[in-house]
Every structure is written in C-alpha cells, then in structure tokens.
C-alpha cells in the first residue's frame, strides 16, 4: 500500500513539475536570459511596477496566483523549487519556517528593507526577519455605517448590541473571529488555553444569531450596498468601502485586535535566488513602493515613501486609523496542535450547535 502511494505521489510530483517546466520553456522562448517565478495573491502588485522591474533587470516575471495559504503550502511542499519569490501570510511564515521550507534572506542584498516602519520589522512570526519581509499589511477593526449606528462603537461588545441584530457581519475566518472574541476578553488572539477559547466561543454563540453573514471575499459589497450596518473588516477593505460609500467609518476597538501581513519570502531551493533578492529590494524602493501601493490600495509599510504618495492616499482617514493602531495589533501565529480545537468550535458556531 505504502509503495503504491509513493508511486502515486511520484506521479503527481512529475505532473506538477511537468507543468512548471512548460511555463519556463514558454518564457525562455522569448529569448530572455532569466526568469523570476513569482507565486502570490491575485492583484498584489501594480503590473506597471512588475514591467519596470523586468526592464531594469532584463528579465521576465512569471506571476502565478494562489487563493489561500493552504494552496501555497501544498504546492511548495510538492515542489517549491519551481518558484523564486512567494508571499505567505504571517502564520504561514511560522509554519513554513517550522517545516524548513524557506531560504534565509541575505540582508546585505536587501538594503531598501530598512525603509520599513519599525513596528513591522520584527513581527512575532519571524522576529529577526530572517526568512520574510512584511509586504502588504492590515489590521482588523470595526466598520460601521453612521446612518444606522448612531452610537460610536468603542469596544468589540458593540457588535453584540441587540439593535444591530441581523445586520452584523463577521469575517469568514475562524482565527479572526475567535481571535476577536479572545481580545474582547482581554486574552491573546493566539491563546491555546482551552478554558479561554471556550469562554470566547460561548460569547460568540450569543452573537451568532445576530450575524447576517460570515464573509471575507464579498464583504465590501455588503457594506457598500448597506446590507450590513456593523462588522469586522480588514483596514484595506474598509478603505475600499469608504471610497464608494462615505457613510461608513472604521475604528480599532480599545481592547486591541489582530494585525496581519503578506510577506515576501524565498522558498528553499529557489533557482534564481539572486534575482529574487533584487526583486524584493526593488519593491522597497520609496518611489516604486509609492506607485505600487497607490495601485493596490493597502497601507504602504515604507516610511520613506510618504512624500511620493498622492495627497488623497496620505489623507485616507481609514488607512490613517489603521496605521495609528499598528501597536495595538497582535500577529496571528500558527497555533499548531490547537488548530483542530479552533476548527471544531468554528463548525459549532456555523451550525448553531
């Protein structure tokens, strides 16, 4: 049985490698000497920035996308050497470091990363930034529509108010939602203490009947169309909603919250390590990063980029709220053995059991 499985997995790896091989062949037929294989989230770069990099370093960038961290992990484990730069999120960096899937970054080749704001230079998932650099980041807060929510919320308990019943949205993510309830009770959002997690979940079970929907992918539409009045949201998405509907406001509750980041990292065994470092360094050039973040709409973590941004971007009230709250945010780390407990509670919450 085991032999059979090894044979099957070998077949699979071959199939995956075959696909990758096809990609690189395709690109080398263009006569370019070097290819940077980038594996990232969709729309995470201004295409013009990538073009600029290709011109500057006479190379080609292959941009493949994944939809979630688990997909990234599965593919890197199947044959990570296919990619040169990847973008795991915070907790996935922990996992990948534990599984020894990331190359150590050569800091001497990355002078521009010194432009990062200090609060993002030593995240708990990679305190010395040995294997990853924070790229896009955001913070979870409360979004509310001033037309319906008259009393300015100050803490997470605002979500529980009976007058908002049926108009509350929670992120469709177990770590975010349970983490929020843990914060409400003054705990760490990475708590693995069964009693603390149970207390948080019992509280959430009171909130669940008030929830209109659990949503991360289309949450913006629900607030723009005013289907929802109040809920949890990531700062970048809140800024997007605000551009379409000026009645919404965003704040970070006083108990603290979750902060997240997509990072830049190099998988073990990457073939074009030098080019990968050049790419990462290029992205933290102040002018480049200003152009890039204007396009993607997230908070620019680059301190030196401020003068290159448009006035509209610098004055965005929601990005300002987010930036001011960095210090009150706690990173999600991989909770490893406690994940099944979280998953079980999550299923209970969803099914109301």
């Amino acid at each position, binding site marked *: 049985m085991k032999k059979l499985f090894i044979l099957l997995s070998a077949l699979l790896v071959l199939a995956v490698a075959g696909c990758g091989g096809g990609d690189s062949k395709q690109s080398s037929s263009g006569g370019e000497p070097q290819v940077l294989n980038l594996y990232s989230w969709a729309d995470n770069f201004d295409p013009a920035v990538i073009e600029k990099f290709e011109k500057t370093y006479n190379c080609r960038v292959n941009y493949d996308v994944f939809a979630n961290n688990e997909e990234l*992990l599965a593919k890197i484990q199947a044959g990570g050497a296919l990619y040169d730069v990847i973008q795991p999120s915070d907790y996935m960096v922990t996992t990948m470091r534990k*599984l020894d899937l990331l190359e150590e970054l050569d800091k001497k080749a990355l002078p521009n990363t010194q432009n990062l704001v200090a609060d993002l230079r030593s995240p708990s998932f990679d305190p010395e930034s040995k294997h990853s650099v924070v790229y896009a980041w955001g913070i979870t807060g409360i979004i509310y529509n001033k037309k319906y929510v008259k009393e300015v919320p100050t803490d997470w308990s605002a979500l529980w108010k009976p007058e908002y019943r049926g108009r509350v949205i929670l992120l469709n993510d177990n770590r975010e939602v349970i983490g929020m309830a843990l914060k409400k009770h003054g705990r760490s959002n990475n708590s693995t203490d069964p009693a603390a997690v149970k207390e948080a979940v019992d509280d959430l079970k009171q909130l669940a009947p008030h929830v*209109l929907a659990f949503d991360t992918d*289309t949450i913006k539409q629900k607030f723009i169309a005013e289907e929802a009045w109040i809920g949890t949201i990531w700062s970048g998405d809140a800024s997007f909603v605000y551009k379409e509907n000026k009645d919404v406001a965003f704040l970070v509750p006083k108990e603290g919250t979750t902060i997240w980041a997509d990072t830049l990292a190099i998988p073990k065994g990457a073939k074009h390590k030098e080019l990968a470092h050049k790419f990462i360094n290029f992205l933290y050039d102040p002018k480049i990063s200003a152009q890039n973040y204007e396009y993607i709409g997230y908070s620019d973590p680059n301190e030196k980029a401020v003068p290159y941004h448009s006035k509209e971007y610098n004055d965005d009230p929601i990005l300002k709220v987010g930036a001011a709250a960095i210090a009150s945010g706690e990173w999600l780390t991989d909770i490893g053995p406690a994940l099944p407990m979280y998953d079980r509670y*999550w299923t209970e919450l*969803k099914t109301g059991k």
Partner: protein
Amino acid sequence: MKNGKFLIAPLLLWLGIFFAIPLLIVVVVSFAGRTPYGQVIFNWTLENYVRFFEPLYLSIFADTLWVAVLTTVFTIILGYPLAYYIAQLPKKWQQPGLILVMIPFWINFLIRSFAWVIILRSQGVLNTLLIKLGFITAPLQLLYNDTAVMVGMVYSLLPFMVLPIYVSLEQLDRRLLEAAYDLGATPFTAFRKITLPLTLSGISEGTILVFISSLGMFIVPEIMGGAKAALVGNLIQNQFLSARNWPFGSALSIVLAILSLVLITVYYKALAAGKGGGKDA
C-alpha cells in the same frame, strides 16, 4: 474483438488517470493522520472515520440530506410541468425551449449566484420593485437564510431534472393516450395511468442527478446563505482550506461518496420493487 479493446484503451487510461488514481489517493489519505502543522503522516488510523460519528458531524450530514431531499422535491414540482410544457410545444419550438433551460449553464455558476445576490439583497432589484409598487415599506430580508439557500439550490439544479423528464416525455407513445381517451379516460386519469408511469424513468434519473449534486454543494450556502448554514460540502472545504486536516476531509468525502452509493442503490431497489421489477434502460 481485439480491435475493440484497443479502441477503449484511451478511455480507460483517461478514467484511470483522472478518476481512479485521485480517488485512490483520497482513500489512502483518509486513513492517515496529521502532524500539528497539518502535514499528512501515514500512521494508518480509523480515527477520521470515528470522528465522523460525533453528534456534531452526524447532524451536519442529516441537515445536508434534508436539504438534498427538499431540493429534489422542489425541482420535481417545478421541473415536471416545465418539461411537460416544452414537450407539448410544436416541434419547432421545442428546441428553443430546451436551449432556454440550458442557457444558464453557459454562464459561470459563481456569477449566477452573485446575480441572485443582486436580485435579492435589501437594496436589490426585487426589494426596490416591491417598494416602488407600494407592496412593502421596508426591504424584506430575502438573503442569507435557509430559504435563500433553497432558492439557489433549486435554481441551479433545475435543468438536471427538466432534461431527463423531457426526454422521457418525448419518447412517450402518443397512441397510448389516444387509446385512453377513446376508452373514455379524463385527461387527469390518462395522465395518472399512462403519462406519469411511463415518464417515471425520467423522474428517477433527474432525482439521482439532482440529489447527488445537492449533497456536495458548497457555493450556494457560502454565497446566498451567508456562510451560516454549514453543509457537508462546506465542512469538507474547511478541512482542506482552513483546518489543514486533509485526512479528516478525505474521510468525510469518502463517507459522502459511500452514502450516495447506498442511497442510490436503495432508491433503485425501491423503484424496481414498486414497478414490479420493470425498468427500461
């Protein structure tokens, strides 16, 4: 004869590579365990199957079965008259009628689900219309509840019921109906004694298609149900995408597949018994 075997070889290879091998991998993984960081380890355990019998997961399976049964019943209630109507049309209108039933299939399912959101949401097409016409004063909450999930399921699976019923109606020998009328049967009696029994095969094929498809549905509850109603499909999706528990997800998939097989077998047996063993292919 040898040539015949040769011809079927590509098909077998295709099925082997894209059906049998993946299924085998799922079976193998369902007996595996996971490390704290979600890697699959092959320590051969029944733990994943034992876990399925916890009340939490059994109740999700029960809910899913109930939703599937309701979906099937509603598609029959809506689908049979529709298929009947199309089959009654003059020949030249039948084809366009069928194409109208199938057109939605040409559009991505995700997009069609979002279209329903635009129709049903509080500032959506339907609510705006009802308010403008003065039927209601405040928008109705039409989305993100069990009814919305049912609407989405019935909508998306209706063609699977209409098409087989249409085929069976089309093959119906009209002379039998004429004979019935000649012998003094009312239209209702003729329908009950002749049309319905002879199109039962279409209904049963449609039932299988709709029932099985609705068991694995996860997009509709996610988008139109506000991700609140967890069906087995959502539970399985979660195991792969957030819980990082491939073995449990695989075990759930296998249980779902076996359950479907058992139900189909029971269903066909019951059907055959009810018909006295007569089932035309």
